[in-house]
């Protein structure tokens, strides 16, 4: 197994002594981990070439590879591989057929019998499950936090709901025998830290035992009836639906049961945590007062029409989209065409299964010529609705579930 140092799907060009490491060396500056950088090679024009296997995504960065989906491309009921967002903390592994054929999942830690399972073992020795499951990046919406929060500036498109096939993590852990001391999982993947240090996992997160034992938390080896796209974790990943996507380790190689909260990279400090009490925007919050995010909040998108659409005044057209609420279900979705002054209920479908996003549609007629916005507001089954502006500010800009809105011109 190797790792692509500049991002796996980036075209490269020789630039003589001009770019990156070469010019830094020319300046006599220290280059951390320079040994891992191919000298004189820099990624070029990723925005022009795009990501292989992905269509129309907005690239936020190529090392690590991060890309979000424009909202109108999320119109599909079941998210396709081409339209599934990409979130990486490290370098995507470059996998050979041999790597895939020899792939194993190690289960150890607080278990009676540590296991080493091949993908065939998973397919042959356990009950298969197929579920539509939503995965959202914890930082989706970060761009709209004020003051600005550091990190990838996701807008709305770091959300997906594909159909996953795999086995229940609970079944695997039960096979291994969960010791009474086990309280938390720790997940490990095959990606490499950006510094190139092979001893340093870029990210290793986990979930409380109860979430691991939930029948909707699975170890998946297929997506939409086919291989998982490499950028989304092929050949094996965790799906811990409704929680920050980082709980759903990609390129999964190991799950350890811990006798305490997991303390891998991005579990501690300020990562994937929010203040234990509401804070004024801009407040610096001590690490000790930050708590781990579990469920994601209630949220919705308007996936059609595409923002900027032109419609005929007085004529009826359909607006539609999806809504989801982490561990919860959506109870209602309302739509406004007058900047939130008045709202009307939209038709809401039941989820395909728990943790699937729910589809909604509304017949809309704009009364007169002019500029309109359609706003959507979902409410979960505990009565919590999306705010029109940012919810509680937090230092890293997580959990921003403000209402989505689109522009429509009535001609």
């Amino acid at each position, binding site marked *: 197994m190797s790792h692509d140092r500049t*991002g796996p799907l980036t075209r490269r060009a020789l630039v003589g002594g*001009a770019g*990156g*490491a070469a*010019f*830094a060396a020319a*300046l006599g*500056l*220290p*280059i*951390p*981990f*320079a040994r891992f950088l191919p000298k004189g090679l*820099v990624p*070029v*024009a*990723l925005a022009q070439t795009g990501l292989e296997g992905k269509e129309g995504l*907005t690239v*936020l*960065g*190529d*090392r*690590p590879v991060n890309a979000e989906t*424009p*909202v*109108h*491309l999320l119109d599909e009921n079941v998210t396709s591989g081409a339209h599934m967002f990409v979130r990486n903390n490290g370098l995507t592994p470059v996998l050979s057929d041999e790597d895939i054929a020899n792939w194993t999942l190690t289960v150890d830690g607080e278990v009676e019998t540590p296991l080493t399972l091949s993908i065939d073992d998973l397919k042959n020795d356990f009950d298969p499950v197929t579920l539509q499951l939503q995965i959202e990046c914890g930082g989706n919406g970060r*761009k*709209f936090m004020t*003051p*600005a929060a*550091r*990190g*990838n*500036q996701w*807008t709305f498109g770091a959300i997906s709901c594909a159909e996953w096939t795999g086995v229940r993590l609970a079944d695997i852990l039960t096979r291994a025998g969960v010791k009474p001391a086990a309280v938390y999982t720790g997940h490990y993947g095959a990606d490499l*830290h*950006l*510094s190139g*240090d092979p001893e*340093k996992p870029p990210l290793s997160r986990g979930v409380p035992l109860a979430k691991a034992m939930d029948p909707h938390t699975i170890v998946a080896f297929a997506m939409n009836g086919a291989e998982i796209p490499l950028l989304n974790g092929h050949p094996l990943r965790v799906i811990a639906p409704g929680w920050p996507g980082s709980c759903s380790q990609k390129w999964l190689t190991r799950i350890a049961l811990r006798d305490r909260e997991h303390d891998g990279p991005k579990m501690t*400090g300020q990562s994937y945590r929010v203040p234990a009490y509401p804070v004024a925007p801009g407040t*610096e919050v001590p690490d000790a007062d930050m708590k781990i995010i579990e469920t994601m909040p209630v949220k919705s998108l308007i996936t059609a*029409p*595409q*923002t*900027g*659409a*032109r419609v*005929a005044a007085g*004529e009826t*057209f359909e607006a539609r989209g999806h809504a989801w609420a982490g561990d919860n279900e959506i109870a209602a979705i309302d739509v406004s065409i007058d900047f939130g002054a008045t709202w009307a209920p939209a038709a809401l479908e039941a989820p395909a299964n728990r943790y699937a996003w729910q589809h909604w549609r509304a017949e809309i007629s704009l009364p007169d*010529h*002019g*500029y309109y916005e359609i706003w959507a507001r979902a409410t979960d089954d505990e009565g919590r609705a999306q705010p029109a502006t940012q919810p509680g500010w937090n230092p890293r800009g997580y959990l921003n579930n403000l209402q*989505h809105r689109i*522009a429509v*011109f*009535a*001609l």
Partner: protein
Amino acid sequence: MSALARLLTLAAMALAVTGLVRLFGGGDEHGARLASRAAQGAGADPVLQMANAWMGEIGYAPSYAALNPYAEASAETASSAFDPADDYWGLPRSEGHETVAAYCAACHSLQIVMAQRQSREGWDYLLTWMVDKQGMAAPAPEMRDEMLVYLTREFGPGGN
């Protein structure tokens, strides 16, 4: 409006209407009426002019750029756009850009740096985190200060 501009406007409307017809199942009277109305109003209809002038973002909420699905992640900073072909990846040229390029790009894309808007304290926290947790070589104090001054000036909370 010149004849050419009028023709172009009509052509653009025809394309937009084609898209709408496809969106709503195609061939219905809705699309035809819209096309007819748009054609009649071209050049004079103020709503059509608004639609043509629309840049894809809500003007009254600058932070809410997502109305344009293809807007750059930091569209408001077009003056300092990430450029992978540039020697310094598009970093604004001012004192400190070489140092920032050398340290930050050793491990990750400059694109994420250029998407941030942080105070000096925020950038200071980030540099500390990079050194303590992410394996960055610790810069000499004067180099660190140079980076902080540069990052705060070019990518401070005020934006540009």
